[in-house]
């Protein structure tokens, strides 16, 4: 510790010397030729003097570099000293400033976070990518690209589905603009969280109404975990790259049949329960309820 302080002192000292010598150089430069340089060879003398001064500055600079290299950077966080008490300031106008500072800090933090996310997404989702395989006419081309569509089209699709069923309520949130995540509440039976990628359904999770709306955690209840599995199967079944909006519509139609999840008995065994679960499968065409084991 003592040694550190000693080194720091000597470093500061050498900086001081350097400063004073640099000052002398500037002084001499600003004064230009003086009487004491004599008459005859005054330019030469002046240049000699300047050279001498610059050499000392050079030497001093080397000293500074040496002593700085000897210093060890302090470990741990810096003690802010009296500035930490800034937060204790109670004067009115300063207090307001503190609140704003906190807010702006939060903002910049959020902006950083979001822009990092946005950067990742944009990097993997370049605008040049178009779906060319089936592009026979120009008109067709714009339609077939189903993961990079203007947000309005998706918006229209969602509202049209919302209108289709009276007992379905849809709330949408868009963490990343072209790819909405919607929550579909099916009456008072269940709630599905559906993530879109463009016009394609990317992910479905089914949960109880009382559970959270997180896309990644699965439901506590066995019945909803089963329904989630079946939804994934149906999602793949209905998938059609050519007519993405039709795929979504058919999926929603099929999904809507779960409104009778608890009340409808199995079509084959006409019972409600099989291994303590209600009929969790809905036929893809007839939409009739079956137990997993009865289908």
């Amino acid at each position, binding site marked *: 510790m003592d040694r550190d302080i000693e080194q720091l002192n000597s470093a500061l000292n050498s900086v001081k010397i350097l400063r004073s010598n640099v000052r002398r150089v500037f002084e001499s430069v600003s004064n230009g030729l003086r009487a004491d340089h004599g008459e005859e060879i005054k330019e030469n003398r002046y240049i000699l003097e300047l050279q001498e001064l610059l050499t000392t500055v050079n030497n001093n600079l080397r000293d500074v570099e040496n002593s700085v290299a000897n210093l060890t950077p302090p470990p741990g966080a810096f003690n802010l000293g009296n500035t930490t008490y800034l937060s204790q300031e109670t004067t*009115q106008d300063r207090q307001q400033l503190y609140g704003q500072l906190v807010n702006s800090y939060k903002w910049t933090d959020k902006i950083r976070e979001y822009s990092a996310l946005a950067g990742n997404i944009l990097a993997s989702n370049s605008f040049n990518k178009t779906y060319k395989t089936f592009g026979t006419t120009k008109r067709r081309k714009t339609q077939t690209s189903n993961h990079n569509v203007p947000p309005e089209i998706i918006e229209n699709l969602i509202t049209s589905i919302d209108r289709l069923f009276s007992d379905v309520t849809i709330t949408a949130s868009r963490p990343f603009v072209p790819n909405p995540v919607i929550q579909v509440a099916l009456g008072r039976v269940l709630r599905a969280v559906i993530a879109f990628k463009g016009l394609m359904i990317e992910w479905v999770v089914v949960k109880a109404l009382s559970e959270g709306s997180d896309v990644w955690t699965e439901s506590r209840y066995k019945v909803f975990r089963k329904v989630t599995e079946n939804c994934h199967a149906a999602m793949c079944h209905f998938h059609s790259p050519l007519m993405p909006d039709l795929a979504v519509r058919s999926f929603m139609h099929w999904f809507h049949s779960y409104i009778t999840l608890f009340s409808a008995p199995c079509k084959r065994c006409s019972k409600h329960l099989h291994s303590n679960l209600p009929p969790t499968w809905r036929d893809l065409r007839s939409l009739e309820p079956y137990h997993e084991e009865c289908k």
Partner: protein
Amino acid sequence: MSTLGTAIDSLTAAMKCNILPNQEYLLQGSVLDQYVEVLLHRLRGLCDNVDSGPETFNDHELCYSLRINSANAPCILPLRVRRALDVTDAPFQLRYVGQPELGDKNRPTVVRSSIDMACSSTILEFLNELGCRLDFEYISRGYMFRKGRMKVTVSKIFKMNGMSNKPSEGVEAISQSYLVELSVQAPLGQDAIAEDMRIFAEQLRPLVQLEKIDYKRLGNMMS
């Protein structure tokens, strides 16, 4: 698996350990309307919730009492219900508040027994049918701050217009001042907190004089 004890068992156990917050330490004062901003600024500086700013509230408080007018000793149990008019899904709050005790000069705050519980919105009908009478009601709007366990409310008290179904319309402030209350709910015998409150109240002077207010003397004085 051990067998479960009844809820009463656990309650009596909690009472024995003295962890039930059944006492309220209280200091009261007021500030004139034109200086309330200054007080809010000072409280923002002093209290914990700095960055989120003060919490506002708009509450409707109904004061009931359950009483028996027997010949020898009339028995009165005061009960208060508070509901948030601005947050409709918040639970109602039912509260029993006992007689405030002033104590001697050395005690820095008023202490009164208090039982505070959240409840469903059926509480109003429940109390009515229980035999309670509504004594008075008012609207309290203002700001809430907290500092550790201490709670500071700065509120304007409004008289109701008499239309119980529209409690926030046509109300009328009863004075040109905001009521300022500093309170802590704590188990019995935690007098150290009262000292903390005194020190905190000291920091609000001369803007607000937070004091022990003698209800009995006040009752005599005002009537």
